[in-house]
């Protein structure tokens, strides 16, 4: 009996030790702020970007009430990321500028993550020069996820603008990153590698792009998976595999068409034409 009581006490004490976590940031003592941030994150994960934006705005307002610069940066960063995901790069840019101004008033250090968002927004707006310039600072950070994503943006911008030096810088940064790296960074690395090989070795580039598509699917980034499929289709087309290219274009187009956002619909139309006129919405209800 004594053994049972002692073992139960030991288990309870261990459980108590396990339930303690690291102290949360100060702003999370504010229930309104904390709840808005948590709800925003849940909405973002469910791809309900409008709800996420609304919650992050509420959190930002609460941070302003608290006169809390770091909390404001956090809420503003999340809001800008949500706007980017919703296909509103112009709004994301404005959010980044507003948050930077707010931090400047409070003499807080600027957050490098905001530079990453700014670079992504400029890339969506097809301002590749500015995107490469803004991606340089976060790419130099020690945080692998941050640096990996910045390198991806620089590489994509370099490829789209024909700036091979930027593409090579991005590839070098990702290639020299110490292991282990997250799945996301691994996919970024393979995608940039595929882009740098697409002209010289399209077959290998297609293979890499297919791997990227699988990785993106596993982590739930379907829009990036569509982009990887389109990259694979482009590589197949260059290597002369036109049937394979058409199939990949069709898969990319249907995936993009099933997603929200005006840019994705444009991409879907373009890729559908390259596939030779594929049915973009095969499961759509019949027209009345």
């Amino acid at each position, binding site marked *: 009996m004594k053994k049972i009581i002692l073992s139960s006490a030991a288990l309870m004490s261990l459980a108590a030790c396990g339930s303690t976590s690291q102290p949360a*940031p100060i702003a999370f003592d504010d229930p309104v702020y904390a709840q808005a941030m948590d709800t925003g994150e849940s909405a973002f994960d469910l791809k309900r970007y409008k709800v996420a934006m609304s919650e992050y705005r509420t959190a930002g307002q609460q941070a302003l009430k608290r006169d809390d610069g770091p909390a404001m940066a956090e809420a503003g960063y999340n809001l800008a990321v949500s706007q980017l995901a919703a296909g509103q790069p112009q709004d994301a840019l404005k959010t980044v500028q507003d948050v930077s101004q707010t931090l400047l008033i409070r003499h807080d250090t600027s957050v490098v993550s905001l530079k990453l968002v700014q670079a*992504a927004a400029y890339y969506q707006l097809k301002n590749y020069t500015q995107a490469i310039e803004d991606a340089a600072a976060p790419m130099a950070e020690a945080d692998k996820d941050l640096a990996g994503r910045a390198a991806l943006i620089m590489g994509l911008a370099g490829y789209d603008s024909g700036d091979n030096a930027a593409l090579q810088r991005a590839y070098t940064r990702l290639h020299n990153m110490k292991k282990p790296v997250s799945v996301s960074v691994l996919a970024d690395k393979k995608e940039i590698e595929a882009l740098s090989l697409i002209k010289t070795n399209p077959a290998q580039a297609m293979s890499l792009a297919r791997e990227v598509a699988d990785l993106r699917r596993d982590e739930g980034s379907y829009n990036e998976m569509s982009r990887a499929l389109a990259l694979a289709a482009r590589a197949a087309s260059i290597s002369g595999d036109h049937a394979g290219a058409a199939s990949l274009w069709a898969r990319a187009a249907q995936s993009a068409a099933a997603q929200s956002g005006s840019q994705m619909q444009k991409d879907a139309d373009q890729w559908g034409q390259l596939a030779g006129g594929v049915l973009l919405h095969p499961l759509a209800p019949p027209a009345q």
Partner: protein
Amino acid sequence: MFQIRLRQKVKPLISLRYTDEWVGLLVILSLVAFGGVIVEAGVLRDWLTPPAILRVTLPAGGVEGLTVGGDVQLLGAHAGTIRSIKLNPSGDMYVIVDLDLQAKPFIRRDSTAVIRKQFIVAGSSYLDLNRGYGAPMNWDYAVISATPAPNPGDMITATLNDIKTQIVPTLESARHMMAELDATMTAMHEGKGSVGQLLTNDALIKDAEKTIVSLNTVISQLKPIENQMATIMSKADATMGNVKSMSGDLAKTTPHLPAIAASVQDSTADLPALLTQAQTTLYSLQKLTNQLRGMWLLGGSGQPKNSKKGWLPPRRVQP
């Protein structure tokens, strides 16, 4: 005729000495008094002061009957005479008027002159000066312009011409209308056109009679339907009675509506608080779930997933 001066031996009653001298003195005094009166009356001043010279330029039509010595009037009163009529090198005519001094203040730079006839359409012409109200005239070279008075005869002629130009087309139109009416009536009498056929041909009247007969037939066929309509109307009347009854029931229910609304209001007043409590409970549950997930006994790592709590991971930044 001849008088013989006889020596009078009778001594006069009154003897006057120096009679001639006294008479002479009286004559001189009379002359002096007369001169003083003339000076006092200003007659000499008028005689000695020269008249004002006014030049009046004439219209292109010429002198319009003005003559040298003609009358010049101001405000209906005599104000001077025409001294001469001149022709200047540019071909214009003007007259020189001796203007009375008392008329000078009334003649200013904006004064004008009108050439009128004594009896409007007849008689001698004269210059009628208008009173001016502008800047004073420079009497060293005073010039005003004259215009002829409108001729009433010309105005009457113009008015008659206007009346003629307006009436003649109207008369022509009236004549044309009457001709058309005459032609139309003639054609109608001859049986031309629809109206003419109506007047001369009785086929249309016969058709109308046939139509009336057909209408009578239709009306007789409609009579059974009229009976059916009466039935329908009676049913509609019963339906309306039901509706009225329903309305009465609704009216009876209406007094209870405020109480029902108040109950609903009381119930809904608690809803915001209930929702907030539910929201808070759900959030607490979520936090509890996250903590339970983190417990190593339940397979968690014991550490929060993201050390930078609240920040979305960089992989969510979509290029």
